[in-house]
Protein backbone atom coordinates (compact mmCIF):
# COMPACT_ATOMS: atom_id res chain seq x y z
CA UNK A 1 0.00 0.00 0.00
CA UNK A 2 1.29 3.46 -0.91
CA UNK A 3 2.03 5.76 2.03
CA UNK A 4 2.15 9.56 2.20
CA UNK A 5 5.94 9.52 2.49
CA UNK A 6 6.27 7.32 -0.60
CA UNK A 7 4.80 10.04 -2.79
CA UNK A 8 6.67 13.14 -3.98
CA UNK A 9 5.46 16.23 -5.81
CA UNK A 10 6.04 15.63 -9.51
CA UNK A 11 5.52 11.86 -9.33
CA UNK A 12 3.42 10.47 -12.15
CA UNK A 13 1.00 7.57 -11.87
CA UNK A 14 1.29 4.74 -14.39
CA UNK A 15 -0.78 5.80 -17.43
CA UNK A 16 -4.02 3.88 -17.94
CA UNK A 17 -4.59 3.02 -21.61
CA UNK A 18 -8.06 1.98 -22.73
CA UNK A 19 -9.42 0.32 -25.85
CA UNK A 20 -10.85 2.34 -28.73
CA UNK A 21 -14.41 3.45 -27.96
CA UNK A 22 -16.81 1.60 -30.26
CA UNK A 23 -20.57 1.83 -30.66
CA UNK A 24 -20.73 -1.29 -28.52
CA UNK A 25 -18.76 0.46 -25.78
CA UNK A 26 -21.31 3.27 -25.81
CA UNK A 27 -24.31 0.93 -25.89
CA UNK A 28 -22.97 -1.00 -22.90
CA UNK A 29 -22.06 2.17 -21.03
CA UNK A 30 -25.51 3.66 -21.70
CA UNK A 31 -27.14 0.61 -20.14
CA UNK A 32 -24.73 0.19 -17.25
CA UNK A 33 -24.44 3.87 -16.37
CA UNK A 34 -28.14 4.61 -16.73
CA UNK A 35 -27.37 7.51 -19.08
CA UNK A 36 -29.72 6.70 -21.94
CA UNK A 37 -29.23 10.02 -23.69
CA UNK A 38 -29.79 9.06 -27.36
CA UNK A 39 -26.99 11.45 -28.39
CA UNK A 40 -24.55 8.66 -27.50
CA UNK A 41 -26.31 5.65 -29.03
CA UNK A 42 -28.69 6.80 -31.76
CA UNK A 43 -27.13 8.10 -34.97
CA UNK A 44 -30.46 9.50 -36.20
CA UNK A 45 -30.93 11.55 -33.04
CA UNK A 46 -27.33 12.82 -33.19
CA UNK A 47 -27.70 13.89 -36.83
CA UNK A 48 -30.99 15.64 -36.11
CA UNK A 49 -29.19 17.53 -33.35
CA UNK A 50 -26.59 18.70 -35.87
CA UNK A 51 -23.80 16.27 -35.02
CA UNK A 52 -21.96 14.13 -37.60
CA UNK A 53 -22.17 11.04 -35.45
CA UNK A 54 -22.84 9.86 -31.92
CA UNK A 55 -20.12 10.74 -29.41
CA UNK A 56 -18.97 9.26 -26.14
CA UNK A 57 -20.48 9.94 -22.74
CA UNK A 58 -18.16 12.28 -20.84
CA UNK A 59 -18.78 10.13 -17.79
CA UNK A 60 -17.22 7.12 -19.56
CA UNK A 61 -13.84 8.84 -19.45
CA UNK A 62 -14.51 9.91 -15.85
CA UNK A 63 -15.02 6.21 -15.09
CA UNK A 64 -11.68 5.51 -16.79
CA UNK A 65 -10.09 8.16 -14.55
CA UNK A 66 -11.72 6.40 -11.61
CA UNK A 67 -10.00 3.18 -12.72
CA UNK A 68 -6.68 5.02 -12.85
CA UNK A 69 -7.14 6.13 -9.24
CA UNK A 70 -8.53 2.88 -7.82
CA UNK A 71 -5.67 1.07 -9.56
CA UNK A 72 -3.27 3.19 -7.53
CA UNK A 73 -4.90 3.43 -4.09
CA UNK A 74 -7.81 1.84 -2.28
CA UNK A 75 -11.05 3.48 -3.25
CA UNK A 76 -11.66 4.63 0.33
CA UNK A 77 -8.58 6.87 0.01
CA UNK A 78 -10.24 8.96 -2.72
CA UNK A 79 -11.74 12.06 -1.12
CA UNK A 80 -12.54 14.25 -4.09
CA UNK A 81 -12.65 14.21 -7.89
CA UNK A 82 -13.31 17.44 -9.78
CA UNK A 83 -13.16 17.48 -13.57
CA UNK A 84 -13.94 19.70 -16.51
CA UNK A 85 -15.03 18.34 -19.88
CA UNK A 86 -12.91 20.28 -22.36
CA UNK A 87 -14.03 18.73 -25.65
CA UNK A 88 -16.30 16.04 -27.02
CA UNK A 89 -14.84 12.53 -27.09
CA UNK A 90 -15.36 11.13 -30.57
CA UNK A 91 -16.22 7.58 -31.48
CA UNK A 92 -13.08 5.40 -31.90
CA UNK A 93 -11.09 7.57 -29.47
CA UNK A 94 -8.44 5.69 -27.49
CA UNK A 95 -8.41 7.33 -24.08
CA UNK A 96 -5.31 7.47 -21.91
CA UNK A 97 -5.60 8.63 -18.32
CA UNK A 98 -2.73 10.36 -16.53
CA UNK A 99 -2.11 11.85 -13.13
CA UNK A 100 0.74 13.81 -11.57
CA UNK A 101 1.26 14.73 -7.93
CA UNK A 102 0.82 18.49 -7.67
CA UNK A 103 0.87 19.05 -3.92
CA UNK A 104 1.09 17.29 -0.56
CA UNK A 105 -0.69 18.86 2.39
CA UNK A 106 -2.56 18.25 5.61
CA UNK A 107 -6.15 19.27 6.37
CA UNK A 108 -7.98 18.60 9.65
CA UNK A 109 -5.35 16.04 10.59
CA UNK A 110 -5.62 14.13 7.31
CA UNK A 111 -2.62 13.84 5.01
CA UNK A 112 -3.68 14.52 1.45
CA UNK A 113 -2.14 14.33 -1.99
CA UNK A 114 -3.49 16.58 -4.72
CA UNK A 115 -3.31 15.03 -8.17
CA UNK A 116 -3.79 16.81 -11.47
CA UNK A 117 -5.58 14.32 -13.69
CA UNK A 118 -6.50 14.22 -17.35
CA UNK A 119 -7.91 12.01 -20.08
CA UNK A 120 -6.51 12.39 -23.60
CA UNK A 121 -7.29 10.74 -26.91
CA UNK A 122 -4.69 9.12 -29.19
CA UNK A 123 -3.87 12.51 -30.78
CA UNK A 124 -3.07 13.94 -27.38
CA UNK A 125 -6.19 16.11 -27.32
CA UNK A 126 -7.30 16.64 -23.74
CA UNK A 127 -10.90 15.56 -23.23
CA UNK A 128 -11.11 15.92 -19.47
CA UNK A 129 -8.87 17.69 -17.01
CA UNK A 130 -9.14 18.28 -13.34
CA UNK A 131 -7.93 17.19 -9.95
CA UNK A 132 -8.32 14.54 -7.29
CA UNK A 133 -7.59 14.49 -3.57
CA UNK A 134 -6.25 11.28 -2.09
CA UNK A 135 -5.84 10.63 1.64
CA UNK A 136 -2.69 8.66 2.49
CA UNK A 137 -1.26 7.51 5.79
Amino acid at each position, binding site marked *: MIGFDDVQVGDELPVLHTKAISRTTLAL*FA*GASGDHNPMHIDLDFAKNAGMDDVFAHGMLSVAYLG*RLLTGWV*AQTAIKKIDVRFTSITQLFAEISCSAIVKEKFERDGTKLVLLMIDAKDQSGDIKISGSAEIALK
Partner: protein
Amino acid sequence: MLNTSDIGKVFPSVTAAIEKGRLRFFAKAIGETNPIYTDEAAAKDAGYASLPLPPSFFFSLKMDVPNPFENYEKVGAPLAKLLHANQAFVYHQSVIAGDSLTFESHIADIYNKKAGALEFLVEQTKVSNQRGQHVADMTTTLVVRN
Protein backbone atom coordinates in the same frame (compact mmCIF):
# COMPACT_ATOMS: atom_id res chain seq x y z
CA MET B 1 -33.77 29.48 -22.13
CA LEU B 2 -32.79 29.11 -18.52
CA ASN B 3 -34.12 31.59 -16.00
CA THR B 4 -32.07 32.76 -13.02
CA SER B 5 -35.28 32.80 -10.95
CA ASP B 6 -34.87 28.99 -10.88
CA ILE B 7 -31.72 29.29 -8.75
CA GLY B 8 -32.52 27.46 -5.51
CA LYS B 9 -35.16 25.26 -7.14
CA VAL B 10 -35.28 21.84 -5.47
CA PHE B 11 -35.64 18.78 -7.70
CA PRO B 12 -37.61 15.71 -6.56
CA SER B 13 -35.34 13.44 -4.52
CA VAL B 14 -34.25 10.11 -5.96
CA THR B 15 -33.71 6.92 -3.94
CA ALA B 16 -31.93 3.99 -5.54
CA ALA B 17 -30.74 0.64 -4.23
CA ILE B 18 -27.31 -0.59 -5.24
CA GLU B 19 -27.46 -3.99 -6.89
CA LYS B 20 -24.47 -6.27 -7.37
CA GLY B 21 -25.54 -7.22 -10.90
CA ARG B 22 -25.63 -3.59 -11.95
CA LEU B 23 -22.16 -2.99 -10.51
CA ARG B 24 -20.82 -5.99 -12.46
CA PHE B 25 -22.41 -4.63 -15.64
CA PHE B 26 -20.82 -1.24 -14.98
CA ALA B 27 -17.41 -2.86 -14.39
CA LYS B 28 -17.73 -4.65 -17.73
CA ALA B 29 -18.78 -1.47 -19.53
CA ILE B 30 -15.76 0.50 -18.28
CA GLY B 31 -13.22 -2.33 -18.71
CA GLU B 32 -12.63 -2.67 -14.97
CA THR B 33 -10.76 -5.90 -14.24
CA ASN B 34 -9.99 -5.45 -10.53
CA PRO B 35 -12.01 -8.33 -9.00
CA ILE B 36 -13.13 -6.31 -5.98
CA TYR B 37 -15.67 -4.63 -8.30
CA THR B 38 -17.20 -7.90 -9.51
CA ASP B 39 -16.40 -10.68 -7.04
CA GLU B 40 -17.82 -10.32 -3.55
CA ALA B 41 -15.24 -12.67 -2.05
CA ALA B 42 -12.42 -10.51 -3.46
CA ALA B 43 -14.17 -7.39 -2.14
CA LYS B 44 -14.40 -8.95 1.32
CA ASP B 45 -10.72 -9.92 1.22
CA ALA B 46 -9.98 -6.26 0.48
CA GLY B 47 -11.97 -5.16 3.52
CA TYR B 48 -15.32 -4.24 1.95
CA ALA B 49 -18.51 -5.86 3.25
CA SER B 50 -19.69 -6.19 -0.38
CA LEU B 51 -18.82 -4.79 -3.82
CA PRO B 52 -17.76 -1.15 -3.46
CA LEU B 53 -19.46 1.57 -5.48
CA PRO B 54 -16.96 2.85 -8.10
CA PRO B 55 -16.11 6.56 -7.70
CA SER B 56 -18.17 7.87 -10.60
CA PHE B 57 -21.14 5.54 -10.18
CA PHE B 58 -22.99 7.95 -7.89
CA PHE B 59 -23.79 9.90 -11.03
CA SER B 60 -25.37 6.80 -12.57
CA LEU B 61 -27.54 5.89 -9.61
CA LYS B 62 -29.01 9.36 -9.57
CA MET B 63 -30.28 8.68 -13.10
CA ASP B 64 -32.31 5.68 -11.89
CA VAL B 65 -35.64 7.31 -12.63
CA PRO B 66 -37.95 7.00 -15.67
CA ASN B 67 -36.70 10.25 -17.24
CA PRO B 68 -33.53 11.60 -15.62
CA PHE B 69 -33.42 14.59 -17.98
CA GLU B 70 -36.94 15.77 -17.19
CA ASN B 71 -35.77 18.14 -14.43
CA TYR B 72 -33.50 19.93 -16.88
CA GLU B 73 -36.07 20.04 -19.67
CA LYS B 74 -38.60 21.61 -17.29
CA VAL B 75 -36.28 24.53 -16.54
CA GLY B 76 -35.50 25.16 -20.22
CA ALA B 77 -32.51 22.93 -20.90
CA PRO B 78 -33.50 20.55 -23.73
CA LEU B 79 -31.51 17.33 -24.04
CA ALA B 80 -30.41 17.89 -27.65
CA LYS B 81 -28.62 21.12 -26.66
CA LEU B 82 -27.15 19.85 -23.40
CA LEU B 83 -23.49 19.07 -22.69
CA HIS B 84 -21.74 18.15 -19.48
CA ALA B 85 -19.28 20.90 -18.54
CA ASN B 86 -18.00 19.99 -15.07
CA GLN B 87 -18.44 17.19 -12.59
CA ALA B 88 -17.21 17.01 -9.01
CA PHE B 89 -17.56 14.33 -6.35
CA VAL B 90 -16.68 14.70 -2.68
CA TYR B 91 -16.62 11.44 -0.74
CA HIS B 92 -17.38 11.24 2.97
CA GLN B 93 -18.07 7.53 3.58
CA SER B 94 -17.71 4.35 1.60
CA VAL B 95 -20.75 2.85 -0.08
CA ILE B 96 -21.28 -0.79 -1.02
CA ALA B 97 -23.76 -3.02 -2.82
CA GLY B 98 -26.88 -3.49 -0.69
CA ASP B 99 -26.88 0.14 0.40
CA SER B 100 -29.67 2.42 -0.72
CA LEU B 101 -28.83 6.00 -1.58
CA THR B 102 -30.99 9.10 -1.59
CA PHE B 103 -30.06 12.02 -3.85
CA GLU B 104 -31.32 15.49 -2.92
CA SER B 105 -30.59 18.04 -5.61
CA HIS B 106 -31.14 21.71 -6.19
CA ILE B 107 -30.07 24.32 -8.70
CA ALA B 108 -27.13 26.10 -7.11
CA ASP B 109 -26.47 28.57 -9.93
CA ILE B 110 -27.49 29.64 -13.42
CA TYR B 111 -25.36 31.96 -15.56
CA ASN B 112 -24.50 32.57 -19.17
CA LYS B 113 -21.50 33.34 -21.33
CA LYS B 114 -21.09 34.77 -24.83
CA ALA B 115 -24.24 36.90 -24.52
CA GLY B 116 -26.42 33.88 -23.81
CA ALA B 117 -25.00 31.62 -26.53
CA LEU B 118 -23.91 29.34 -23.70
CA GLU B 119 -26.07 28.94 -20.63
CA PHE B 120 -24.83 27.11 -17.55
CA LEU B 121 -26.81 25.24 -14.91
CA VAL B 122 -25.07 24.14 -11.71
CA GLU B 123 -26.79 21.34 -9.80
CA GLN B 124 -25.71 20.48 -6.26
CA THR B 125 -26.61 17.04 -4.88
CA LYS B 126 -26.35 15.68 -1.36
CA VAL B 127 -26.11 11.89 -1.19
CA SER B 128 -27.21 10.00 1.94
CA ASN B 129 -27.42 6.30 2.68
CA GLN B 130 -30.25 4.25 4.21
CA ARG B 131 -28.98 5.09 7.72
CA GLY B 132 -29.23 8.81 7.01
CA GLN B 133 -25.46 9.22 6.84
CA HIS B 134 -24.16 11.87 4.46
CA VAL B 135 -21.92 9.81 2.18
CA ALA B 136 -21.08 12.12 -0.73
CA ASP B 137 -21.73 15.37 -2.54
CA MET B 138 -21.92 15.91 -6.26
CA THR B 139 -21.77 19.08 -8.29
CA THR B 140 -22.84 18.85 -11.91
CA THR B 141 -22.47 21.75 -14.33
CA LEU B 142 -24.38 21.46 -17.59
CA VAL B 143 -24.11 23.77 -20.56
CA VAL B 144 -26.94 24.56 -22.97
CA ARG B 145 -25.66 25.46 -26.42
CA ASN B 146 -28.10 27.91 -27.95
